[in-house]
């Protein structure tokens, strides 16, 4: 599988994301946000964590309107796969690709710790290597991770099996304990936790390894 990792000024998890993708056997390419074209034959667009544009205005707001984003939207409209982690999730909601928005954590503090997640959807390419309701341990590090969506959007997410991960012990006030959501076609995933930080034995846990290993693998 060939993945393009988009980099913005202020992205800081791009190298970890590239390392996790390479470790699990994928081809990778880095794309600067000022590009207006993506190389051909990209299977997955991955948007890393960080503080794109210094979180100015709202987290992800400026990145979602950057030059490369026209291509990102075209890729997704064609049914292409995309992944946004942490700031990447914020960017996907700001671009209107995923519903809702990530608000300031309920306790107003930045939270950096390892949390337990329940895997809710096991049919997407991102999650099929986990068993249903499995509990995985993945780090979070965010200030704005409190997922908010309208009642209608939340209902749709539940009805269409779009909730990928939920927190066991909600750290930030997110609606319905939501940690990660999928698009309606289950090909775009946005999540606040960082699976790339739990892929190697030195990380203390490798619960994120199967996440990347399973991408585009047919079971």
């Amino acid at each position: 599988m060939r993945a393009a990792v988009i980099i913005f000024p202020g992205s800081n998890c791009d190298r970890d994301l590239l390392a996790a993708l390479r470790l699990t056997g994928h081809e990778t390419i880095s794309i600067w946000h000022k590009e207006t074209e993506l190389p051909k034959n990209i299977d997955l667009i991955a948007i890393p964590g960080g503080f794109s544009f210094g979180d100015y205005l709202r987290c992800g707001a400026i990145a979602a309107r950057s030059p490369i984003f026209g291509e990102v939207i075209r890729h997704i409209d064609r049914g292409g796969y995309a992944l946004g982690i942490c700031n990447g999730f914020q960017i996907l909601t700001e671009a209107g690709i995923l519903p809702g928005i990530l608000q300031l954590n309920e306790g107003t503090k930045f939270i950096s710790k390892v949390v337990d997640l329940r895997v809710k959807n096991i049919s997407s390419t991102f999650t099929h290597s986990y068993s249903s309701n499995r509990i995985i341990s993945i780090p979070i590090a965010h200030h704005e991770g409190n997922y908010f969506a309208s009642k209608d959007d939340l209902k749709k997410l539940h009805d269409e099996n779009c909730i990928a991960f939920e927190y066991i012990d909600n750290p930030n006030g997110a609606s319905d304990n939501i940690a990660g959501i999928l698009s309606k076609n289950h090909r775009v995933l946005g999540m606040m936790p960082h699976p790339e930080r739990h892929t190697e034995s030195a990380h203390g846990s490798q619960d994120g390894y199967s996440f990347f290993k399973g991408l585009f693998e047919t079971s």
Partner: protein
Amino acid sequence: MKARVTVMLKNGVLDPQGEAVKQALNSLEYNNVESVRQGKVIEIGLVETSKEKANKSIQEMCEKLLANTVIESYEIEFI
């Protein structure tokens, strides 16, 4: 021409910053403070002579970038 855009969280949307400011004011013994909502003020200088055009243009800017209308509302005034 100069305009001021005020962006506020919509009613009913939790505002943890406003809540924290309210608690700080209460702890300074301003016990008359019942609620605080925090928003953003953005001033925009425009090369435009028609107020109507300017208003339309700023409204577009608000919808496209300045406010996230999922949780925020905005007001435009000319100064």
